[in-house]
């Protein structure tokens, strides 16, 4: 019984740690994005609150909490109030299967550095990402606003379309690792990260991930110059902040996911495993910010065409090729 309680306590501590790291990371990712975008556009970005603007996330948080929480007339009140929680919730749940390193030995006990090592980890993550679509669809619908509705229709269309290449791009990795558990997948990359064998899958994954987090050049759901702010236009204060938090958590999560599936997870020389994972996780958000600074927005039909004419068939061909090579090699 004491063992059970100890296990439970360790689990709670792990959850608190992951929650704290993820939320702080998301808050500071906003700062990093604003700074980087600023420098890429020949300006400074936030530099007033604290040294180098380091306290800016705190100031943003205080501002968001103190802002008035508006519910538009004719809105579906209950759905409108509840929906912003969906996106951060699903993303934080997905962090439960992310392993942060090899096992840790505390007081003679082997403690795995993952909240739960699910047998079907990759599928779990994909299923949660498909649930995140609800925040968009319901948020846009419940606001009772034309722009929100149009944003929701576009966003749902793009997200359910791009789940296909996202899922299919991960199949070769699962085939190579022979398991859907993230720990097993990372352990299978001890010698060589999968990006070496699967560069096409990595590119497909990054492109689909870009669509899944709805960022430029695929931010059609919130295209400012056509739809004001799209599906979250009517939200204000902390509810709006929750949408934002969800988006940035999602960026970090996709970074961690790509690091685990393609870049070899925590494996790396010299530095401790956790540091390697952090570095590899940071690649994706910074890439996404860089893309945002560089490329203009696509048209909806161009985006759908990219998905169904190029990405999905390419992902299928990649699976076929991987299978053929694996068969030939035995």
């Amino acid at each position, binding site marked *: 019984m004491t063992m059970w309680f100890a296990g439970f306590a360790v689990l709670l501590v792990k959850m608190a740690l992951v929650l704290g790291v993820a939320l702080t990371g998301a808050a500071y990712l906003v700062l990093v994005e604003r700074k*980087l975008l*600023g*420098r*890429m*556009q*020949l*300006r*400074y970005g936030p530099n007033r609150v604290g040294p180098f603007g380091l306290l800016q996330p705190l100031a943003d948080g205080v501002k968001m909490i103190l802002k008035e929480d508006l519910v538009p007339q004719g809105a579906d009140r209950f759905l409108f109030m509840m929906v912003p929680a969906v996106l951060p919730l699903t993303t934080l749940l997905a962090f439960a299967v992310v392993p942060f390193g090899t096992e840790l030995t505390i007081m003679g006990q082997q403690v795995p550095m993952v909240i739960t090592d699910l047998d079907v980890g990759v599928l779990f993550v994909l299923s949660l990402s498909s649930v995140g679509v609800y925040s968009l669809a319901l948020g846009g619908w419940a606001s009772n606003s034309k722009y929100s509705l149009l944003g929701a229709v576009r966003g749902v269309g793009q997200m359910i379309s791009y789940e296909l290449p996202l899922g299919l791009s991960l199949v070769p990795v699962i085939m190579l690792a022979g398991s859907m558990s993230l720990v097993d997948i990372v352990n299978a990359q001890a010698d060589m990260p999968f990006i070496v064998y699967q560069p096409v899958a990595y590119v497909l994954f990054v492109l689909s991930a870009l669509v899944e987090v709805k960022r430029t050049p695929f931010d059609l759901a919130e295209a400012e110059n056509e739809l004001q702010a799209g599906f979250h236009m009517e939200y204000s204060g902390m509810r709006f902040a929750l949408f934002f938090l969800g988006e940035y958590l999602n960026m970090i999560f996709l970074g961690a996911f790509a690091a685990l599936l393609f870049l070899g997870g925590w494996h790396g020389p010299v530095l401790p495993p956790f540091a390697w994972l952090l570095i590899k996780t940071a690649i994706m958000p910074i890439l996404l910010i*860089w*893309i945002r*600074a*560089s*490329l203009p927005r696509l048209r909806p039909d161009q985006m759908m065409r990219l998905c169904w004419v190029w990405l999905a068939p390419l992902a299928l061909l990649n699976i076929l090729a991987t299978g053929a090579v694996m068969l030939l090699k035995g």
Partner: protein
Amino acid sequence: MDERKGIITSAAEGTRGILEPFWVTLRQLFHKPITEEYPEFKRALPERARGRIVLTRSPDGEERCVACQLCSAVCPVSCISMQSAVREDGRRYAGWFRINFGRCIFCGLCEEACPTLAIQLTNDFEMSADDPMQLVHEKDTLTVDHGGRHPDYDFYRHAGVAVRREPGSHEDEDAPVNPKSNFP
């Protein structure tokens, strides 16, 4: 795809079109920002910039405003209000004068309407406040002790109060015409 170009040329051009912006943004990342940071560095505003409204004084230190209500009438957002009063010597002035800067759009029409050049727009624009009521300025905060853009002009030297001097001795005034000497 352009029909005159081959598929390889257009693919190469497309790839270049996608990749080149990345190089541009990366290069700019290491440039010095061109931002001029505001509270430390303030740009000199042009003379005619339209900012906070003031009530100026004539060279002898008297208020220029004669409370004629023209500025209030012309104001498109109706942010100016006042009450006129008359001094014992017949000189008019504003009993109270109020501008609601929360509504003011700084269009400058009041300045154009003013016959005495009393109301003027300055190039001070830093007037934010926590409370909207702090943006309602009264006469004591509006009045300044100089003549603004026209330091030498004095309305009462031309008109306004009862004429005390001989005709023709005022500023810019020609000698009165003698109607009897004007016959051909």
